């Protein structure tokens, strides 16, 4: 079966304007968009650049815009897409080359919310820091984030102010603030309650539309807001 892909191309070293190249390739029924990009790179145009790694929807490397929607391309079957498939880099991140974007700032924002468990008590020596199944449920829908950047890339509040932490970093912040074993809110409140923190979200829900893992970063942001208000009261 043949499929046609229209792929965004940009190489800053050549000075050529960004443009689209069209490839018509032979594909198999079971292929994903990433499989098709691999086919192009390996057999048609070796200069095509994109980021990929695990091929199992875990690493978050291969997020791109497919027919105008952010997707983890390794999990998007070609069979779910009709006609010519347009593949573009994630919006609002600087393009390094072709479909590869610069996510340095994205990960810097993540580091600002301290995405690790903060607990100054000594851990038990005979077991892990356990929590009840009920407490564990609080952070469901946050730990599944694969940090692909699809949500932050689609966020109008981030487009307007690139200083904004963005939905991915805030979702990850709630992963730890909402963890009953964590004691680090005091260390995170400065950044979460700042001008680039939770209050900049306008509840537009683009992040929810964009998440390839069907997570709800807005819900996490809302919970962070409530927690900050509770702390102030």
């Amino acid at each position, binding site marked *: 079966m043949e499929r046609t892909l229209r792929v965004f191309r940009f190489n800053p070293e050549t000075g050529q304007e960004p443009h689209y190249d069209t490839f018509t390739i032979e594909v198999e029924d079971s292929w994903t968009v990433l499989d098709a990009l691999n086919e192009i790179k390996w057999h048609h145009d070796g200069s095509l650049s994109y980021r990929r790694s695990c091929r199992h929807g875990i690493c978050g490397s291969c997020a791109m815009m497919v027919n105008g929607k952010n997707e983890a391309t390794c999990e998007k079957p070609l069979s779910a897409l009709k006609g010519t498939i347009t593949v573009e880099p994630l919006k609002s991140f600087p393009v390094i080359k072709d479909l590869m974007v610069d996510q340095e700032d994205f990960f810097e924002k993540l580091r600002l919310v301290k995405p690790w468990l903060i607990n100054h008590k000594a851990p038990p020596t005979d077991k892990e820091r356990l929590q009840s199944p009920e407490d564990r449920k609080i952070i469901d829908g946050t730990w599944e984030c694969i940090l692909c950047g699809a949500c932050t890339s*689609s966020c109008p509040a981030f487009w307007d102010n690139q200083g904004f932490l963005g939905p991915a970093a805030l979702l990850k912040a709630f992963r730890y603030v909402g963890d009953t074993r964590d004691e680090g809110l005091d260390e995170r409140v400065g950044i979460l309650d700042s001008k680039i923190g939770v209050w900049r979200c306008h509840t537009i829900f*683009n992040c929810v*539309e964009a998440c390839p893992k069907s997570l709800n970063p*807005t*819900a996490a942001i809302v919970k962070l807001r409530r927690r900050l208000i509770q702390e102030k009261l």
Partner: protein
Amino acid sequence: MYRWHAGYVAWLLNRITGILITFYLVMHIWVIHHLAHGPEKYRMVMDFLGSPIFVFFEICIIGVVLYHMMNGIRIVLVDFGNGAWTHKTLFWVVMAIGVVLFVLCIWELAGALLGLSHAVAATH
């Protein structure tokens, strides 16, 4: 622009209606300030605003305020309720309530305008 969906449309319309309401408030203050120039001046302005085009604008501003109000309630439910998970359904629910309120307002307005025109006719 990312993609069209209820959340994005709700936010976009909230911005637009917010700007229109601000513009209306400025106009409203401008109209009211004519009171300071005496009853004749005020009556002149009010007669001008009684023209059909301004009645149409008045109906529009009812819709604009109702939208902003109903979406505001939706946002409160998102922030303080469970609305972050049900925001699309919430959007259609508040819009449906908004339409009912709009029809009721128009009904009242039409009654008031008809009553007014009868009163004006009686004075002639």
